């Protein structure tokens, strides 16, 4: 059996958000050197200009963050048109509030938190049982202690279909889905998720694990329906 860490630790390969101000908040600080300092200064300059109402600078901030915000929205709602609407709303709110950003956290953290709230608000409007980030982080009532998973006759042999996996992700409760998307797809570490969502690192790990187990169950059920296991 392969070393589980090699396949479970996905975040190292994922791109990280850049930091503008308050650079100590999310990403692990590396030893400062001229290149990093120059980049941070350049980004701080862009931010200052955007805060002063410079449209060109705001467009640069959009370019720097659009992929991660759009990807987050897309993985959370599973629909391209909804993801576009949510990305637009997140950047509109970003534009409205950017002058109030004081650098207590990294800009990317601030923007991601804003986008997460836009997504959760959208899910609530769609009638899903999510009223706030706090509620999304509450453990689901179906997680009975002592329940065990796994059976050797239900192995997920063969490739996993993208659409089936997306459907299974879509069916996760919003809180689990959020942590799964942030960790497994967006590449955030648990300490970063804890900062983003104002939860403990233990809570992040536990929610992620429950999300993985739910996905595992959903995929096995799908395979059984298809007669593949």
């Amino acid at each position, binding site marked *: 059996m*392969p070393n589980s860490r090699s*396949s479970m630790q996905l975040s190292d390969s994922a791109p990280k958000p850049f930091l503008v101000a308050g650079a100590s908040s999310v990403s692990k600080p590396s030893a400062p050197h001229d290149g990093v300092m120059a980049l941070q200064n350049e980004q701080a300059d862009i931010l200052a200009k955007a805060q002063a109402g410079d449209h060109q600078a705001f467009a640069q901030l959009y370019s720097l963050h*659009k992929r991660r915000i759009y990807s987050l929205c897309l993985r959370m709602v599973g629909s391209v048109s909804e993801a576009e609407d949510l990305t*637009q709303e997140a950047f509109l709110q970003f534009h409205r509030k950017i002058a109030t950003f004081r650098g207590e956290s990294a800009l990317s953290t601030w923007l991601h938190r804003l986008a997460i709230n836009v997504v959760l608000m959208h899910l609530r409007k769609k009638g899903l049982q999510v009223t706030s980030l706090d509620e999304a982080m509450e453990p689901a009532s179906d997680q009975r202690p002592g329940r065990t998973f*796994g059976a050797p006759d239900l*192995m997920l042999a063969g490739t996993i279909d993208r659409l089936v996996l997306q459907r299974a992700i879509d069916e996760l409760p919003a809180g689990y889905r959020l942590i799964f998307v942030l960790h*497994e797809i967006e590449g955030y570490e648990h300490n970063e998720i804890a900062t983003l969502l104002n939860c403990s690192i233990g809570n992040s*790990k536990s929610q992620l*694990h429950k999300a993985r187990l739910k996905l595992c169950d959903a995929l096995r059920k799908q395979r059984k329906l298809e007669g593949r296991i």
Partner: protein
Amino acid sequence: MNESTNNLTCAEFQALLPELLDSPTDMSQHPHLQYCDNCRALLTNLESIAEAVRHLFPVVEPPDTLWGQIELAIKREETDSATAN
């Protein structure tokens, strides 16, 4: 692995999984997995899902037209705000 991990039940082992999966430990050497087909299958399935997610869901680029829509909306808000003042 110490002796206390040698005789874990499946529930006890699976309760440790969130920490174990996030640690540099080589899980394949865990004593429980040497005799438990269920938990070995579960771990393999979790690895398969993680691997699939990594390959199937890259960070994606929004359509080029999206910035134009956002820019338009920003200008509309600024115009509305100026009119209101």
